[in-house]
């Protein structure tokens, strides 16, 4: 922002006071209507029938079970996804092997696929009409319409989340530090924990936070594979839908308020992590050739 304080320079394009105020005004109004209002209305509707209805919704066994199921899903899916993200980033950025770019594209696929398509795809693997369905039936293993299905679907939709934060950063950091460490005799794990991890911790945490938010909020994919059994396979987002269609709007919004609070905390964490430098190193696409994050200045 070196030009901001200099009075001699002509104003930049779009800096005329009238235009500036007009544009800020329009953006603030539309932003408030489109982004802020939906957040506020959740709180208003949640308490529309008073504190007592709000508290009783949250104390309801079905709601509590939905919260429990959502937390359990996140506690299982997010760590597994994190390990995968680290492994993928290590393999892709520390080694050269044929098909690296293709692997990057495949990892990003879930990001562009409708959650409904993901859910349907899982039916054709683990459902009765799917690949493993008959086999699972014989051994009486329940994957669909049970917790494993919910976790698998959540892992599908969030598969790229950690990897896509780590890969550009680790690509930019190069391999020199790790190569020095191993040539000095450090083991692979030691190298990872003492050399790599300290350099990627904020980006890793950033990916984990975003991954967690998506797992807790996933609706489409989970609604296909969960079977919506009240008090059994309803996660919090599905529980919201159930209450809403049951004409218990206040209850639906009360449950939604929990997820809204998590969303706000996710954003606060995101901003805090960005101040630590996370989320900054970005390549426009994972599948395009890497460019150094800091362009060499002539």
């Amino acid at each position, binding site marked *: 922002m070196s030009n901001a304080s200099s009075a001699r320079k002509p104003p930049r394009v779009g800096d*005329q006071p009238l235009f500036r105020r007009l544009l800020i005004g329009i953006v603030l109004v539309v*932003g408030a209507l489109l982004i802020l209002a939906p957040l506020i209305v959740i709180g208003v509707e949640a308490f529309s029938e008073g504190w007592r209805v709000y508290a009783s919704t949250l104390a309801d066994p079905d709601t509590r079970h939905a919260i429990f199921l959502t937390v359990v899903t996140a506690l299982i899916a997010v760590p597994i996804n994190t390990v995968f993200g680290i492994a993928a980033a290590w393999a892709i950025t520390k080694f050269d092997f044929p098909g690296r770019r293709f692997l990057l594209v495949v990892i990003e696929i879930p990001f562009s696929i409708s959650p409904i*398509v993901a859910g349907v795809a899982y039916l054709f693997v683990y459902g009765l009409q799917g690949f493993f369905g008959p086999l699972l039936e014989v051994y009486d293993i329940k994957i669909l319409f049970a917790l494993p299905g919910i976790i698998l679907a959540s892992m599908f939709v969030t598969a790229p989340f950690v990897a896509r934060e780590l890969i550009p950063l680790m690509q930019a950091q190069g391999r020199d530090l790790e190569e020095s460490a191993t040539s000095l005799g450090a083991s692979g794990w030691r190298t990872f924990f003492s050399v790599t991890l300290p350099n990627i911790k904020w980006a890793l945490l950033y990916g984990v936070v975003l991954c967690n938010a998506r797992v807790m909020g996933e609706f489409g994919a989970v609604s296909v594979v969960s079977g919506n059994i009240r008090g059994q396979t309803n996660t919090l987002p599905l529980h919201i839908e159930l209450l809403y269609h049951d004409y218990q709007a206040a209850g639906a919004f009360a449950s939604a308020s929990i997820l809204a609070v998590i969303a706000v905390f996710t954003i606060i964490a995101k901003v805090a992590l960005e101040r630590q430098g996370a989320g900054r190193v970005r390549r426009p696409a994972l599948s395009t050739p890497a460019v150094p994050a800091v362009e060499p200045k002539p």
Partner: protein
Amino acid sequence: MRRNVLPGLSLSLGVTLFYVGLIVVLPLAALIIKAASLGPVDYWSIISSSRAVASYRVTVLSALGATAFNLVFGLALAWVLTRYRFPGWRLIDAMVDLPFALPTAVAGISLTALFANNGWFGSVLSEFGIKVAYTPLGIMVAMCFTSLPFIVRTVQPVLEDLDPALEEAAQSLGGSDWTIFRKVIFPLLTPALLAGLSLSFARSLGEFGAIIFIAGNQPMSTEITALLVFIRLEEYDYQAAAAIASVLLITAFVMLAVTNLLQARALRYTARS
């Protein structure tokens, strides 16, 4: 090629391939195989049924409308957030990510509450005879909300990195602001804008949770394709569900290819300038 001394290739690549294979590739392959097992005649008759075609139409048209809105508003928002400093800009900047952080089902019920006839916005709009909830307009509003961050977040870094010298040169040549924006700034933003547009459009095509609450879900008019897949599943018509889902999947692959192409171009463009 330099000999690589780092350990862990087989472990990390093994974990990656196993996970990607099991979690991503296997299910998608299963879906494609299921859809392919239908045979061309049955497949075509399912995906070209009038109800399916109506669902494609409303999905694509709403996604186009939402993307057009986001193009204008997203660009304005990115511009304001990079060029102007005013009280609260950091808050606005953070709030741009809300549509990514807020679960789609939550967004769906809250937008419905706002735009229903007795809602804050719906009651005002109905005075003018505009109905949003339970009409295609509602689908568009939901898509606008969920895909808003894409354009802002792809254009913002390019605007931040824009060299002020380019504008100064154009100003010293006597260009008006509007001319400079049109002839100098906008062309530099175009690659990022296109990439953001394709991401935003792809997201709108696949969106489900935010839309089904506000859409009304009437076959032939306000039923999106993702919902039609869901309905076929509930009717235990797995073949139809597989066929229509495969249309969404193929569209997603095409959009992915387009996005990657545009982003590769955007990258070359920024690398050159």
